[in-house]
C-alpha cells in the first residue's frame, strides 16, 4: 500500500468548514518567540507550517479537532483553542 500525502488523507474525510469563524487562532507575536515549535511535528493533520518568511501559518479547515496543538504548545497565549461551532468541523463517518 503506497504512502499517502496528508492532503490525500484529509481528502477522504468529510468536513463542514465554518467560513465565518476560525475555531483555532494563532497569536503570531507570541508564536514567533517559540524556538521549538512542537506543533509543526505533532499536529496529525500537518496544519501548522512555516512560510518563506519563517512565520507560522495555520489552516483550520482540515482540523481533526484532537487538541494536540493546545497541549504541546509551550507558549501560553500563542494558540487560542476551541471546538468549532456546533455542526461545523470534521464529521467522522467511521470513527
Amino acid at each position, binding site marked *: 500500500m503506497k504512502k499517502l500525502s496528508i492532503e490525500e488523507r484529509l481528502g477522504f474525510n468529510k468536513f463542514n468548514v465554518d467560513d465565518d469563524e476560525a475555531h483555532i487562532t494563532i497569536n503570531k507575536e507570541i508564536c514567533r518567540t517559540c524556538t521549538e515549535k512542537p506543533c509543526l511535528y505533532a499536529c496529525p493533520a500537518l496544519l501548522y507550517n512555516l512560510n518563506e518568511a519563517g512565520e507560522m501559518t495555520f489552516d483550520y479547515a482540515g482540523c*481533526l479537532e484532537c487538541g494536540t496543538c*493546545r497541549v504541546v504548545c509551550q507558549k501560553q497565549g500563542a494558540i487560542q483553542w476551541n471546538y468549532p461551532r456546533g455542526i461545523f468541523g470534521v464529521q467522522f463517518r467511521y470513527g
Partner: protein
Amino acid sequence: MSEERFDCIIVGAGPAGSAAALTLARAGLEVLVIERGLQAGSKNMTGGRLYAHALQKIIPNFWEEAPVERRVVKETITMITPSGSVSLDYKSQRYNQEPYHSFTVLRAQFDQWLATKAEEAGAVIATGVRVDDLLRDDQGKIIGVIAGEDQMLANVVIAADGVNSLLAQKAGLRGELKDIHVATGVKEVIELPRQVIEDRFQLTGEEGAAQLFVGRCTQGIQGGGFLYTNKNTISIGLVITSGAIGKSKIKIADLIEEFKTHPNIAPLVTGGKVVEYSAHLVPEGGLNMLPALYTDGLLIAGDAAGLVLNTGYMVRGMDLAIYSGIAAAQTVIKAKEKEDYSKTSLSHYQELLKNSFVMKDLETYKNAPAFMEQTTRIFTTYPQLADNILYKLFTVYGTPAQHLLPMVMGELKKNNISIFDLVKDGIKGVRAL
C-alpha cells in the same frame, strides 16, 4: 432564558454521556444531552476496542442489536524492528462464548446507536450545539450551561465532553492538560472485503483480531501502534505521548504512513482503500492525572475525567467511560431524592467509582505511565534485542552453532544492556503492569 429546568444536562453524547442519559431517563428523570457533532459519534474516534462488561450492566447482550464490528478472539502483542517483528499471539475459543468479552467498534455508528437508546428511554438529545460555558448562580454554584445565546438550567451538569474537556477547566476542576499526560492517536480506516480480512487474520464469522505494536512503528518514541479488524475495514494507527513528538522532531502524520508500509504490515492491508483519517487525544496519565471529579452542581465523566488505562498490552477507555456515566447518573438520582445538589451530596460519585473497577484498576496500574516513560528501552533496545536473538536462533548458515545462553549474553553485551538492567526493568515492569 428557558423556564424549564432539567434534572440533569449532559454535555457530550459519547459512551459516558449516553450511558448516564440512559440510566437517568430510565429512572424517570428529565435529561437533556447536548452534543456538538451533527450526530452523536460524528466527533468521536477510538482505536478501537470496547470491553463489554460495563455496557452489559445496562444493556444486557447489547451485541445482539448494537453496531459492533467483531468480537475479539485473538490478541497479539508485537515488537517491531526495521527488518522484522516478534509477536506473542493468543487465540482462544473462550472468547467465542457468551457473554462476549470485547468487540472492535467504529464510533460514528456505535455512539449514535447508544445515544438512540438513551433517547428511546426518554432523554432529549440536542445535536449540533456547542456548549460554550457553565451557567452559575450568585453564589457561583453551577446551575446549567450556556450555548451561544441560549442558557439552559439543570440541577446537575455532567461534563462528558471528552479529553479536552473545556468545561472541567471552566469549572476549575482541572488546569491545562500536560503534554506528558496525554498521547496523540492517529488512525486510518482501510476498507477490504470481509473474506480477505478473515483470511489474512485467520478469523471466521464474527471473530476479530486485536494487535498492539511497540518499537520501530514510533521510531523509539514513547508510544505504540495498533491494528483492529472490523467487519470490512481495518483500523490501523499509532498512539504517541504528545510531549515526546515535539521533542523528537518526527511528524506523527508521517510515522503512520511508515508503519503501514513496513514489510510485515503491508501484506495485511495491501489492496485496501483508505476511507478515513482521524486523530484524537488519549488521556494516559492514569491515576496521577485525575482531576477532582465533582463540585457543586457538576460531575465529570469518561475521558473528560481522564479515565483511561494503558498498560502497554491493553488499552481501556470506553468501559471506564460507560461505568463512570452510570455512576454519575446514580449520583444524580440519589441527589434528587435528597434534593441536595451540593458538592457534599455529589461526593457519592467518588465513592461509587472508588468501590468499582474504575478506581481499583487505575490504582493497580498507577505506576504504569511512569514505568513506560522511564523505561525507554521498551521502545528501542528490547524490540531489536528480541529480533537479533530470534534471528540467531532460527538461522543456519553453516557457521558453528552457539548455545542459547552465550548467544543471548553476547547480544545483551552488543546492545549495552547488563543483566542488572534487564532484571531491574523486568522487576519494575512486573510490578507496574
